């Protein structure tokens, strides 16, 4: 009786959140799908009507599409490799007792709070600029004419460095939190039984961290699939298509080229890609709800 009443109240309290999220999910998604099958180019307003799969065909056969997919994968995998492996090592290091532990933690964490446009511009100008950047100055001090032209010669690698710098703190912080919940007695017991450092790591520490590592990888993948600001303010996708990723190609198609239909088709492809990752992430998080 009381529960009947409180259930109704609960439903009432939940409905605004569900309502706005439902609208937020359905309206843009439906519009993206709709536009992706329409002829809709802001430069040719008289050409309208059903386009069938044309937009998808144009997007997939665009000379930039192959590069965009490849760069998206390289960017995601590159940053994941650096941040996950680096994060595990850093977490293990910061978990050891030493003087000033708290301060070092703050230093390592800091890049995560730097807004993407600041991070990208600072790396581009103050560090990677071959003449006036920090690395350029170092190279000149060793007698070189100019430093390595990061953004010209290795644009994708440079973007990976910038993004990894921002996400390494995230991985480290979460893995460190997981590490600190490890039962110390288990480690000590293994030590007494004669297990070396390596086997302690492989058989006790790593299994304990598996969940956290999975979560780090999946959450980062969601964010890394949509890296945009870093590319916009540094390379603009270039030179050529060297640092173009999928979100950036969608932006180029729909906003710069004014082809709304083609951009929408690219958007649908991006959504499908993200949902494949999301499926696994949701399963990993959902398991935690049971307990």
């Amino acid at each position, binding site marked *: 009786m009381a529960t009947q009443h409180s259930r109704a109240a*609960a439903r009432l309290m939940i409905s605004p959140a569900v309502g706005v999220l439902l609208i937020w999910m359905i309206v*843009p998604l439906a519009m993206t799908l709709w536009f992706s099958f329409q002829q809709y180019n802001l430069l040719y307003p008289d050409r309208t009507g059903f386009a069938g799969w044309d937009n998808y065909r144009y997007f997939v056969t665009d000379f930039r599409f192959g590069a965009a997919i490849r760069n998206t994968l390289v960017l995601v995998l590159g940053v994941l490799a650096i941040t996950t492996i680096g994060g595990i090592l850093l977490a293990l290091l910061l978990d050891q007792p030493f003087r000033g532990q708290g301060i070092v933690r703050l*230093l390592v964490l800091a890049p995560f709070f730097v807004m993407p*446009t600041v991070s990208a511009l600072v790396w581009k100008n103050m560090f990677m600029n071959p003449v006036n950047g920090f690395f350029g100055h170092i190279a000149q001090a060793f007698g070189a004419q100019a430093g390595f032209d990061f953004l010209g010669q290795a644009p994708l690698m440079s973007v990976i460095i910038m993004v990894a710098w921002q996400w390494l703190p995230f991985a480290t*912080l979460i893995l460190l939190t997981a590490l600190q919940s490890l039962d110390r007695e288990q480690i000590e017991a293994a030590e007494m039984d004669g297990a070396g450092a390596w086997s302690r790591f492989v058989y006790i520490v790593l299994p304990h961290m598996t969940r956290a590592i999975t*979560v780090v990888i999946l959450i980062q993948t969601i964010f890394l699939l949509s890296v*945009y600001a870093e590319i916009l303010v540094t390379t603009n996708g270039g030179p050529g298509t060297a640092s173009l990723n999928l*979100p950036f190609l969608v932006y180029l198609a729909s906003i710069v080229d004014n082809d709304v239909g083609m951009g929408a088709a690219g958007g649908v492809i991006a*959504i499908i*890609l993200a949902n494949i990752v999301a499926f696994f992430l949701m399963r990993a998080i959902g398991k935690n709800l049971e307990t």
Partner: protein
Amino acid sequence: MARAVSARRSLLTGILAWTIGLVIFFPILWIVVLSFKSEGDAIAAPLAMLRAPWTFEAYAEVQERSDYFKHFWNSVVISVGSTLIGLLIAIPAAWAMAFVPGRRTKDLLMWMLSTKMMPAAGVLVPMYLIFRDFGLLDTLAGLVGVLTLINLPIIVWMLYTYFKEIPGEILEACRMDGADLKREILYILAPMAVPGIASTLLLNVILAWNEAFWTLRLTASDAAPLTAFIASYSSPEGLFYAKLSAASVMAIAPILILGWFSQKQLVRGLTFGAVK
């Protein structure tokens, strides 16, 4: 003997950890230094630059361009505004889900989370057109709305994990003692919920402050927050290292300090409660 070994080990660990920590922090430290140099000195070689006189010139210049404070204020309005509206919608929802869980609560939570998985690029086209047709392009109201929706799932989730930790038995005990609903909420629940709400607020302000897709795409000048203001330095005129450094320092300092304070809550919020 054992103690001597472990003391030496801890010293070595310390040196290694401090070195790595400083290397990671170095870019931030470097722009702080550059921001206190003149434009000419800022592009000099590191040693010459360090020896050059210190000055507030760059800060003065960035502030003189009166638009800096407009963008700073826009960032404040967007991040705090979207967070407060988000809390207003999310607190009742998280509350109900934590204290009156139904059969569907778990599915509902997972569904909310799934809306967060939609890549921004996927809905850029319709959002841009909606904003254009409703006259929301380059308005604070429009951006506050979008950022509220983007971060609402995280707010609900974080609040839910906090509220779940409030023992339900306390409520029953209150009811036995004859407290009415108003008192129950005011004197018992609110004080227990405040810390969770505060950390949710903090994390969400940080996320909204640094959001750099919609803030770049849906603004031009009037409603542009600091993310967009800084982006305007990507095609500058003349020497700009000191000015860019000063603007950057001012843009990241408040959030860096907030972030350092909230590092514990960060883990819970960013992993949707999966790692605590």
